[in-house]
């Protein structure tokens, strides 16, 4: 039985993404630790996935025909948690307990703690393999549901990612859509300095993937790419979502020092006040 997602307009999705960003900033400042840049950079992708692309039912997280989602880059889970709460998987007030003792929201994703989370991930490279395992089993059982997995670009340094890429290419996992958060930063600096990834598109294409480059802040483009992935029948699809780390908060944008730290209360207040409207294309940094 397919469930109908409510259809949101692009304008509504932009607003949802902005609400998610605000919640992410509040969560991080309350938690006192966590990853700011990737979480903010992926808000548009998460809003699009959960409010337009995924076939899911927040009131029934274990619905067996749901599309599966695995966050391989477990450290950006503030944006996932904020999106899950916004979708109705759990009350929004839970967000303020992120990373705290007794919270539903562990520092990294854990299936037994959080409604809507199917696996545990965090050590990089692990989630993508689990997503491919789900996709393989889905094809084995002739299921219609699809699997989506978000990974970071720094995460692609892990060997396990390429083992999975080879496996998915070999087995033509057409129901698997990977999304790379291509924000060009990782903890020690810019990805091309730490461990160059280019030509990233060429790498996945040579592993027998269908690869799409999209502007990760252009909601229409993200929807189009996900639809195209559904139409490609002989390959898995990798969407390289070009994002600005820290998107929306001008003093965080493109600065790798924000990869693994939260804003302090003054910075958060400043960020919330200045959170820019985020329609359209990637903006050139104007700071």
């Amino acid at each position: 039985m397919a469930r109908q997602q409510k259809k949101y307009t692009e304008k509504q999705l932009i607003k949802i993404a902005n609400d998610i960003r605000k919640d992410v900033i509040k969560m991080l400042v309350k938690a006192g630790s966590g990853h700011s840049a990737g979480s903010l950079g992926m808000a548009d992708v998460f809003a699009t996935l959960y409010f337009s692309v995924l076939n899911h039912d927040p009131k029934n997280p274990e619905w067996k025909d749901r599309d599966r989602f695995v966050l391989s880059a477990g450290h950006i889970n503030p944006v996932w948690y904020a999106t899950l709460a916004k979708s109705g998987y759990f009350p929004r007030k839970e967000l303020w307990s992120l990373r705290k003792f007794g919270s539903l929201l562990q520092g990294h994703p854990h299936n037994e703690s959080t409604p809507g989370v199917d696996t545990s991930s965090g050590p990089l490279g692990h989630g993508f393999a689990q997503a491919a395992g789900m996709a393989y089993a889905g094809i084995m059982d002739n299921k219609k549901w699809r699997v989506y997995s978000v990974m970071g670009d720094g995460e692609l340094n892990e060997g396990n990612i390429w083992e999975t890429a080879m496996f998915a290419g070999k087995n033509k996992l057409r129901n698997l859509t990977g999304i790379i958060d291509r924000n060009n930063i990782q903890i020690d600096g810019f990805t091309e300095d730490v461990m160059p990834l280019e030509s990233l598109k060429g790498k996945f294409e040579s592993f027998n993937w269908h690869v799409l480059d999209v502007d990760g802040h252009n909601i229409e483009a993200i929807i189009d790419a996900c639809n195209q992935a559904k139409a490609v029948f002989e390959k898995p699809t990798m969407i390289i979502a070009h994002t600005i780390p820290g998107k929306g908060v001008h003093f965080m944008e493109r600065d790798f020092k924000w990869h693994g730290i939260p804003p302090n209360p003054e910075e958060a207040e400043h960020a919330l006040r200045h959170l820019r409207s985020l329609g359209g294309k990637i903006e050139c940094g104007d700071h």
Partner: protein
Amino acid sequence: MLNKKFNLSKEIFRKNIKRVPIRVGYGEGLLEAGKKDKNIVALCCDLTESTKTSFFKNTFPDRFVEVGVAEQNMAGLAAGMALGAGKIPFISSYAVFSPGLNWSQIRVSICYSNANVKIIGAHAGISVGPDGATHQALEDLAITRVLPRMVVVVPCDSIEARKATMAVAKHKGPCYVRLAREATPVITSEKTPFKIGKAHVYREGKDITVIACGPLVYEALVASEKIKKNISCEVINCSTIKPLDKKTILKSVKKTGRVVTVEEHQITGGLFGAVAEMLASEYPVPVTGVGMPDCFGESGRPEELLEKWGMNCKGIIKTIEKAMNFKTRD
């Protein structure tokens, strides 16, 4: 005297006792479990024949997944198949690679998620022989035993391996089963009971408790038979390392007051570790270990290596005699 209620092989103390590789029992058990439960799938890393996953593959080609030489990926894929689609994956490779190379995936994707995945570590122990130290898994029990939720089973022969495989298929949650390469004396019979978490007193005695696992259960039984005139050994097949059968071990130790553990593994962290930890808090007595004394192995024939490191019958007797000198509780 061998404990009659376990219906052990009548050939135990004969030279020509039947020998079958323990991994063959795994292959048979997986096939049988697969026939009973269609959710069972098998993944393998380019070692389908030598792990005997081939029996399953040949009957259920559509439920077999060739992963290539990628053990980390195998563990992750299996976790996803279990968590996202209700499969019961058996993942097999050599123990040095799985759980050796993919421990983090086993820890997080499988154990922390409580994924219903069975990890099969083949070619474990020093008896892998000529391949040398790189391929002799002597640490696998230690690294699996410390993981919360993990069940750890070491079958003593091919028949027990078949039963253990079917038992872990029914158990809900992560399990590790350790297999050996060499043809191993078949000491149990179809009628010998097997249950996860249950150790069995294969030989009753009063002077010392010998707790063994894997192929060395046979060596321990032969050793105890050879010295029976002087020392009365109680020999326990402790095929489940975790959860440890405290009750059976404590009952025996309260009678004998001394323990020798016997395993093809580093002395620290495996069976010795499990038994010593339990006894330290429940009933402290001297415990001596037969196993690898914090060293790496080397190439050689299995019997040469077992001899060098005191893990054969002769070495076990020596350790038992030494242990008899330790002062025990009053």
